[in-house]
């Protein structure tokens, strides 16, 4: 953005020089040459002042640009007093000539297409009043001013948006890089030690065995944490379902998924993951103390299937009343409800002694 302000400043100075050349060349034909020189002097003073004020963000206030546009319009109208009406009718340039467009450009840079448009309309109105009628030449000038204000402002809006997007992307990139660095470090140090403690102490009884088991659990949890892809929706509002399911793996839960991303709309993915969590919670509550669970994620192109299987006690299909008493049916209905909400299906199968299998399926449209 600072480059744009420099460009506007360069334009102002160049346009001022051009206006000065015009005054020097034409002053002997002016009705009031002294007033012409005075106007040029004021324009020069304002050019210096406004460039100085635009150096800092705090100086670039709304009022400054309103005043800037007012002065530009005033300089255009001053032509009426300086020039003879005959010369004006013959299409003599206004006193500030292109200098007036500097205020329009500044407003466009500061306020986007709206700011540029408003400034262009004000200066164009002054041009028309100065000439007294809308001639072809004035019309061209007006169109050029509007063009400069609107298109210039629009480009500034685009540049600002692009700048913000680049900043956000580089922030994300930095976060990912940092995450990868951490993951490497953790993989190279902490995980190795935890895995080793878990292995050396496995099978040993008492405190050592307990320590080993804890180390093992922490290792699995930490591995899942550093390995999980970032759980953030992309520009299309889609998310990699793996990023929501893999953190669920742990000591008793194994999550299997493809090597490729499994993209789903973020809200659908969230509901699906919530259904999986409920199914896993059910395993912990009702599957029995040692029940383990496996989550399998499959991408069948036209649909996504997640299966949750456990090796817990299970229940017989004809024992729904029992299941309802145990609170299992509530969970089942909640899972089915979630899947129905996102246009998917859930099937729940169980055999006593052989655990329960929940299949969640959602179609891609």
């Amino acid at each position, binding site marked *: 953005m600072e480059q744009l302000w420099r460009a506007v400043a360069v334009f102002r100075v160049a346009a001022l020089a051009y206006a000065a050349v015009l005054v020097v060349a034409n002053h002997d034909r002016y009705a009031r040459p002294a007033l012409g020189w005075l106007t040029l002097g004021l324009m020069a003073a304002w050019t210096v002042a406004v460039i100085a004020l635009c150096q800092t963000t705090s100086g670039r206030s709304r009022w400054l640009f309103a005043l800037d546009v007012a002065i530009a319009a005033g300089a255009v109208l001053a032509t009426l007093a300086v020039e003879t009406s005959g010369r004006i009718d013959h299409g003599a340039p206004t006193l500030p000539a292109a200098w007036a467009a500097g205020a329009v450009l500044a407003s466009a840079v500061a306020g986007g297409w709206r700011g540029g448009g408003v400034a262009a309309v004000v200066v164009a109105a002054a041009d028309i009043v100065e000439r007294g009628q809308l001639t072809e030449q004035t019309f061209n000038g007006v169109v050029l001013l509007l063009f400069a204000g609107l298109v210039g402002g629009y480009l500034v809006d685009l540049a600002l948006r692009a700048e913000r997007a680049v900043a956000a992307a580089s922030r994300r990139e930095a976060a990912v890089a940092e995450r990868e660095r951490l*993951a490497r470090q953790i*993989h*190279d140090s902490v*995980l*190795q*030690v935890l*895995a*080793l403690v*878990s*292995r*050396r102490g*496995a*099978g040993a009884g008492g405190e050592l065995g307990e320590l080993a088991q804890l180390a*093992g659990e922490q*290792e*699995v949890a930490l*591995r*899942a944490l*550093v*390995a*999980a892809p970032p759980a953030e929706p992309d520009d299309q509002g889609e998310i990699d379902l793996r990023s929501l399911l893999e953190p669920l*793996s742990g000591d008793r839960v*194994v*999550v*299997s*998924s*493809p*090597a*490729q991303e499994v993209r789903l709309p973020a809200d659908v993915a969230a509901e699906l993951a919530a259904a999986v969590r409920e199914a896993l919670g059910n395993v912990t509550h009702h599957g029995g103390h040692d029940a*383990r*669970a*496996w989550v*399998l*994620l*499959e*991408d*069948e*192109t036209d649909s996504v299937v997640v*299966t949750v*299987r456990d*090796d817990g006690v299970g229940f017989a299909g004809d024992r729904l009343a029992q299941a309802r008493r145990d609170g299992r049916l509530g969970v089942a209905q909640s899972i089915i409800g979630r899947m129905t909400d996102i246009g998917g299906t859930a099937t729940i199968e169980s055999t006593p002694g052989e655990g329960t*299998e929940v299949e969640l399926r959602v179609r891609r449209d």
Partner: protein
Amino acid sequence: MSAGTDLPLRVLVVDDHPIWRDGVTRDLESAGLTVCGTAGDGAQAVRIATATRPDVVLLDLQLPDMSGVEVAARLSAIDPAPRILVLSASGERQDVLDAMTAGATGYLVKSASAAELLDGVRRVAAGDPVFTPGLAGLVLGEYRRLAGEPSGPTTPQLTDRETEILRLVAKGLTYPQIAERLVLSLRTVQNHVQNTLSKLQLHNKAQLVRYAIEQGIDE
């Protein structure tokens, strides 16, 4: 067990962490296996494997000098090739899949217990596939990915039976449990699992050959 004799299995342990190498070596030796060498990087692993002819290479995929898939490919090129059991972190999915298609026949996560590791080494040495549920999920995903690509003459496909068995492996069933559920012999189940991997490995080789021919380096 190598070549039908009663000689102890000879294992090469490849990992860039000395602590881990020592720990695993101790576990294997205390179970009566011979650790014929250890290596901290890929080049060393290939050198030692060529010189000592181990039955099984226990391979970590994160090595300082080359990628896991490259080490697996170079080890597979040794004649006779050692069996490769990949031992790695659960997070390195594409790596794992690549190493398997490059010639490894077993995969275990590092958090596997000493008993699981020993069992894995023995099964890989006997020519059986060692799959984790995670690997089965990866292999299923790989076939789906291949199915979505423009198919060539070598594009492998799973039979319905293979898909069924892989899904059961991914859902945590052991081979005996699968055999019981599908009323098949244990050997048949293992063969099916083995086939799913062999087809990918064959496809991988065909791809490499085609690439070599296309690049004009087939002499």
